[in-house]
C-alpha cells in the first residue's frame, strides 16, 4: 500500500473556495484564521484517547486527578510492554474448539497487539483530565434506551444471528462490506482500536471532514437547509454555520442501516468545533434521538494536531474477509448437507 494523500473529494472542495475568499483584518494570530477571517480548523487531527465514551461505574467525577490519570496511562503502556514480550517458540496450535475469546475475536482470537493503536493518554479538555467523554448527563453515561429502541435492538440481534445472514453480501454488516467504519463517523467518537485520525479542509462554503476509517469524507455545507427526508447519505446530511468562532454542524437524514449506539434514522447530531490553541480543537457533540434515548447526551473530545498525513484506508482493495466469510458459510452448508 502506498502513502497516499487525501483524495479528490478534498481537491474539489478546495477548488471551489479560493475565488470567494476576501482578505479581512483579523484580531487573532493569522495562522489560526483563514483568509476570510474564520477560525482555521484545517489540518490533520487525532481523537485517539484512552478516556472512554462512558464513565466507568466506579468513577464518580468527570475530572480525574493528575495521579489517577497517570495510573490509567501507565496501565496502558504496561499492558503494551507485556504483549511485546516474546512467545514460546515451541508453542503448539491453539485449542481445538476455540480459544474462548469473545466479541469480534469470536472464539478464534484476533491478531497481535502490535497492529493496534488505541491511544495512550486520557482526554484533556480545558486543562481538565477527563474520566469520560460524555459530560452530560452528569453521570457521564448514555441515557437509558427507550422501549422502542430495546425492541429494535432485539430484532436487529435476532436478524444478525439468524439463518440466512450469510446468504448475500448485502446481508453482511456495513463495516465488513467496507461501506462505513466499525467506529462512529457522526459524531466523531474514537473507535479505541486504530487509525483515529481525521483531516479537515475548509472553504467559505464547505467544510470537509475526512476520516481515516474508512477513508470517508463528510462534506458539510455552510448555510442552507437539510436535504429532503428521503435522501439519506451514509453519514447523514450535514449543514453548518458559524456562531462567533465556533463552527456548528447539524446532521440529520441518517440511513436506517447506521447504528450509533442503537440509534434509529431519527438520529440528530449537533457538533461544535472550537479552536482551543494552535494544537487543539475542542470538539463537542450532542446526540438526540427521542425514539432511541430517553434524553439527549453531550460529549467533549480534544482533537490534537498531528504532524503526519492520513494514510489511505482503501478498504475494498484487500477485503478478502467478506469472501472468506461467505465461502466459509457455503462450506458449512455442504458439510451439514443443508444447502438451500
Amino acid at each position, binding site marked *: 500500500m502506498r502513502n497516499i494523500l487525501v483524495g479528490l473529494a478534498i481537491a474539489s472542495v478546495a477548488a471551489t473556495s479560493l475565488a470567494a475568499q476576501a482578505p479581512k483584518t483579523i484580531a487573532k494570530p493569522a495562522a489560526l484564521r483563514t483568509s476570510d477571517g474564520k477560525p482555521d480548523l484545517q489540518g490533520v487531527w487525532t481523537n485517539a484517547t484512552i478516556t472512554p465514551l462512558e464513565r466507568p461505574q466506579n468513577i464518580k467525577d468527570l475530572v480525574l486527578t493528575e495521579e489517577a490519570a497517570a495510573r490509567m496511562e501507565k496501565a496502558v503502556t504496561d499492558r503494551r510492554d507485556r504483549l511485546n514480550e516474546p512467545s514460546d517458540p515451541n508453542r503448539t496450535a491453539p485449542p481445538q474448539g476455540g480459544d474462548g475469546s469473545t466479541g469480534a475475536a469470536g472464539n478464534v482470537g484476533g491478531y497481535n497487539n502490535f497492529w493496534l493503536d488505541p491511544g495512550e493518554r486520557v482526554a484533556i479538555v480545558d486543562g481538565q483530565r477527563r474520566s469520560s467523554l460524555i459530560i452530560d448527563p452528569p453521570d457521564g453515561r448514555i441515557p437509558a434506551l427507550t422501549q422502542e429502541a430495546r425492541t429494535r435492538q432485539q430484532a436487529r440481534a435476532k436478524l444478525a444471528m439468524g439463518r440466512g445472514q450469510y446468504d448475500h453480501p448485502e446481508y453482511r454488516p456495513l463495516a465488513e462490506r467496507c461501506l462505513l467504519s466499525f467506529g462512529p463517523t457522526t459524531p466523531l467518537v474514537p473507535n479505541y482500536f486504530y487509525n483515529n485520525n481525521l483531516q479537515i479542509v475548509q472553504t467559505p462554503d464547505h467544510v470537509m471532514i475526512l476520516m481515516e476509517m474508512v477513508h470517508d469524507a463528510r462534506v458539510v455545507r455552510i448555510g442552507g437547509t437539510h436535504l429532503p427526508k428521503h435522501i439519506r447519505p451514509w453519514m447523514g446530511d450535514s449543514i453548518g454555520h458559524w456562531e462567533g468562532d465556533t463552527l456548528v454542524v447539524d446532521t440529520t437524514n441518517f440511513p436506517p442501516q447506521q447504528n450509533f449506539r442503537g440509534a434509529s434514522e431519527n438520529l440528530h447530531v449537533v457538533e461544535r468545533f472550537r479552536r482551543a490553541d494552535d494544537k487543539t480543537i475542542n470538539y463537542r457533540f450532542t446526540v438526540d434521538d427521542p425514539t432511541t434515548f430517553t434524553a439527549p447526551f453531550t460529549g467533549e473530545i480534544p482533537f490534537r494536531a498531528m504532524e503526519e498525513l492520513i494514510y489511505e484506508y482503501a478498504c475494498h482493495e484487500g477485503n478478502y474477509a467478506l469472501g*472468506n*466469510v461467505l465461502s466459509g458459510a457455503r462450506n458449512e452448508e455442504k458439510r451439514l448437507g443443508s444447502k438451500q
Partner: protein
Amino acid sequence: MTTRNILAGLLLAAVFVTGRSVIAHHAFGAEFDPNAPIRLQGKVVRLEWVNPHTWIHIETVKDGKPEIWMVEGGTPNTLLRRGITRDTVAVGTEVIVDGYQTKDHSLKRANGRDVTFADGRKLFMGSSGTGAPRDGSDPIEGGTKPAPKKPGGK
C-alpha cells in the same frame, strides 16, 4: 505473558471502558473455524500491506510438499506511522504462526493470532507512545521521525 487472545483482551478492555462490545471491521468468528486450529512455520514469501487487513504469505512444508498459506493481520496504517513498511520483513524470514484456518477449508488461509520470528520474538513491536501517531502534544516525542525498525529475523 503469551499473546493469547490479544484481540479478545483488547475487546474485553473496550467492553470494560465503553460498556458494550466493539464490532470490528469484521467478525473473525465468522471467518475462521474454531475447530481448525493450526500452527505454521515457514518462510515469508510475500507481504500484502493492504487494508482493511494485512496478509502475510508464508511457505510451509507438509508431507514433504510445499504449501503457501495466507495469514491475516491488522491494518498496516498503524505500522506505517512507526516507519514499518512491507519491506521491513525480508522475504525468506522464518516465522511461526498460530491461529485458526478459514471456515472454507479449501483455502489455505488463517488468522495470525500470534505471529513471531522463529525464536519467539514478536514480528513487530507494539507502540502507542513513541511512534504512532505523533501529534506534537508531547515534548518527549521530539521533532524527528522514528527510524524504520528492522527486526531482521533469522
